[in-house]
C-alpha cells in the first residue's frame, strides 16, 4: 500500500523478515505512550531492553544535554521479562517485533532467550551486549570477542527458531562483529551509545556518566557500519545519531540493511524522517533495498 502511495519501494529484507520500511526504533527510545506518534513509520518495533528481573534503574539525574546530543544513564530500568511479556501486545502494530535483551551473565542471556523462544509475537531478538550504563557483574563482560562469542553462541542455542542480532559497542567493533557472526548471529546492530561524561563545574560533581547519543555520534556510527559491513556477510542494522532521511540513506549506503532511530525521535517527528527518506529515494529513482552497501561496490 505504501508503495502505491509513494511510488517507491521502502521495503527491505532483514534476517528473513520483511520490513515495510527500513526504520525501527532504537531500544529504549519509544514508549508505549508515544506509539501513536509513529504510526506507519517503522518497519519493525523494538521495545525497551528487558532483563530477567525488574531493574529500578539509576538514580537521577539521568540525562544531560551536550552539543548536538545527550548523555543518558538510565540503567536499563525495566519491569523484568515476565511483566514485559504481559505488556508486549501494546507493541503489536502489525509489524515484526524485535525484543532487546540484556543480562549480567551468559546464563542470563540464555535464560531470556529460552523464555522468549516460544513466543509467537516475537520475530527476532536483539542481544544488548553493549549498554554502557550497566556494569556486567562489576566488569564489562561483553567487551571482547571471546565474551561476545560466548554470549551469542549460548543465545543462539537457546532460541533456535528466531533470528538473533548482536548489538555491539564501537570499541573493537570489527573484531566483535566477526566473533558474533562466527558464533551464529543472524545480524548485527551497529552501534550503541558511546561512553561519555558530563560535569557540573559549579557543584563540582559528575552530572551524568553514561552513553552519548544524537547527531554528535553519527560519523562514528557510520564508520563502524561501513567497516563492519565490509567484513561480515550477515546484515547490519545501523544505529547512532540518525536524525534525518538523508542520514537513513547514508547509513544504508554505508552498508546497513535497516536503520534505527533513537534520540532523534525526542526532538523530531519520526514521520518527517520517513518522509525525507522517501523523497530522497524518489529524487534518485531508487528503492530502499538498492541502497544497502552501495559504497562498497564502487
Amino acid at each position: 500500500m505504501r508503495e502505491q502511495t509513494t511510488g517507491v519501494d521502502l521495503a527491505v529484507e532483514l534476517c528473513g523478515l520483511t520490513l515495510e520500511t527500513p526504520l525501527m526504533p532504537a531500544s529504549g527510545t519509544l514508549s508505549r505512550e508515544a506509539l501513536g506518534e509513529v504510526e506507519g513509520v517503522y518497519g519493525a518495533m523494538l521495545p525497551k531492553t528487558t532483563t530477567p528481573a525488574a531493574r529500578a534503574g539509576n538514580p537521577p539525574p539521568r540525562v544531560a544535554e551536550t552539543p548536538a546530543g545527550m548523555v543518558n544513564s538510565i540503567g536499563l530500568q525495566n519491569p523484568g521479562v515476565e511483566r514485559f511479556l504481559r505488556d508486549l501486545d501494546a507493541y503489536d502494530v502489525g509489524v515484526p517485533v524485535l525484543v532487546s535483551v540484556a543480562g549480567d551473565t551468559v546464563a542470563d542471556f540464555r535464560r531470556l532467550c529460552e523464555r522468549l523462544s516460544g513466543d509467537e509475537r516475537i520475530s527476532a531478538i536483539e542481544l544488548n551486549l553493549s549498554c554502557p550504563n550497566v556494569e556486567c557483574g562489576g566488569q564489562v563482560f561483553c567487551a571482547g570477542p571471546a565474551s561476545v562469542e560466548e554470549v551469542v553462541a549460548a543465545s543462539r542455542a537457546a532460541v533456535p527458531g528466531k533470528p538473533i542480532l548482536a548489538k555491539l559497542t564501537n570499541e573493537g567493533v570489527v573484531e566483535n562483529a566477526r566473533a558474533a557472526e562466527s558464533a551464529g548471529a543472524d545480524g548485527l546492530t551497529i552501534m550503541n551509545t558511546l561512553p561519555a561524561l558530563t560535569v557540573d563545574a559549579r557543584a563540582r560533581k559528575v552530572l551524568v556518566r553514561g552513553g552519548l547519543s544524537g547527531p554528535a555520534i553519527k560519523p562514528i556510527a557510520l564508520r563502524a557500519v561501513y567497516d563492519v559491513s565490509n567484513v561480515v556477510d550477515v546484515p547490519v542494522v545501523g544505529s547512532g545519531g540518525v536524525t534525518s532521511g538523508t542520514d537513513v540513506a547514508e547509513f544504508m549506503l554505508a552498508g546497513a540493511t535497516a536503520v534505527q532511530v533513537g534520540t532523534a525521535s525526542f526532538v523530531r517527528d519520526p514521520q518527517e524522517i520517513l518522509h525525507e527518506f522517501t523523497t530522497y529515494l524518489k529524487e534518485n529513482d531508487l528503492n530502499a533495498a538498492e541502497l544497502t552497501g552501495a559504497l562498497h561496490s564502487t
Partner: protein
Amino acid sequence: MKFHSVKVEEREVLGNYTLLHYRWEGPVDPGQFVMARTAGYPTTLDPFLARPFSFYDYDGEVASLLFEVRGRGTALLDLAPTIEVTAPLGKGFRIEPARGRVALLGGGIGVAPLKILGRYLDAMRVPYDVLLGFADAESAVVAKEFPGARVATMDGSAGTHGTVMDTTDTLRDYGALYACGPNPMLAAVKLAAGEDSLCQLSVEERMGCGNGSCNGCVVPVHGGGYIRSCVEGPVFPAEVLAW
C-alpha cells in the same frame, strides 16, 4: 515528538523571569507542560533538546510560559520571534471543589503553574491563598501577578525573610495544598500537609523527550523504584513520592 512553530505574540520581563505568550487552540489542564525550543533540525542541532515548561496561563486563545534564563536554551527562547512547542503534555493538578479553601505554594520559577491553576479554581469557585518564596526581590517581581499573595525571600529583600514555608503556620488547615518548586521545598510541603488534605506536588526535573520514551525525568516513589515525571506527572499526589 511533534513540534509546532508558534509566533511569540508578546514578551514581558518580570524581574528575573520572562513571560512569553503565543496563540494555542485546544484543551490545557492546569499543571500540564510543553517542551519548547527556538528551533530544531534542519535549522539547528544545538541546543539539541527542548526544555519543559509548565503552562503559566491559558485563556482558551493565548498560552503563556514563564521561564528564567539559565543557559543557552533559555537565553535563545528569551530572544526568538517564533518558538517551537509540543502539544500539552503530562498530568495536571487534581481539583476537588468540596475541600474548601486551598493553598497554592510556589518556590522560585515554580510559581509558573499556579497562575493557570488559580484561573481554574476561580472558575470552580474554590477559594485559595497564594504563598510564594523567592531567592530575592528581583525574582519576586512576578508576585505582582498574584494579587494578595504572601511573599518570602531568602535574602529578606522583599516580604518575609525566609522560605515560602515561613509565610504561614496554618498549612494544616487548608483542604488542599498545591505546590511547585525545588524538591526540598516540595518535601517540606508534604511534611506540613494535614493528614486528610489533598497534597499535589508539581516536580521540576531534567527531561530528554517529554513523552515517556527516555526514562530520563524520573522521581523516586514510595515503595521503591522510579516513575517518569513527564507521563505519570509532572503533578503527583504527595504520598506517591519517596521524599
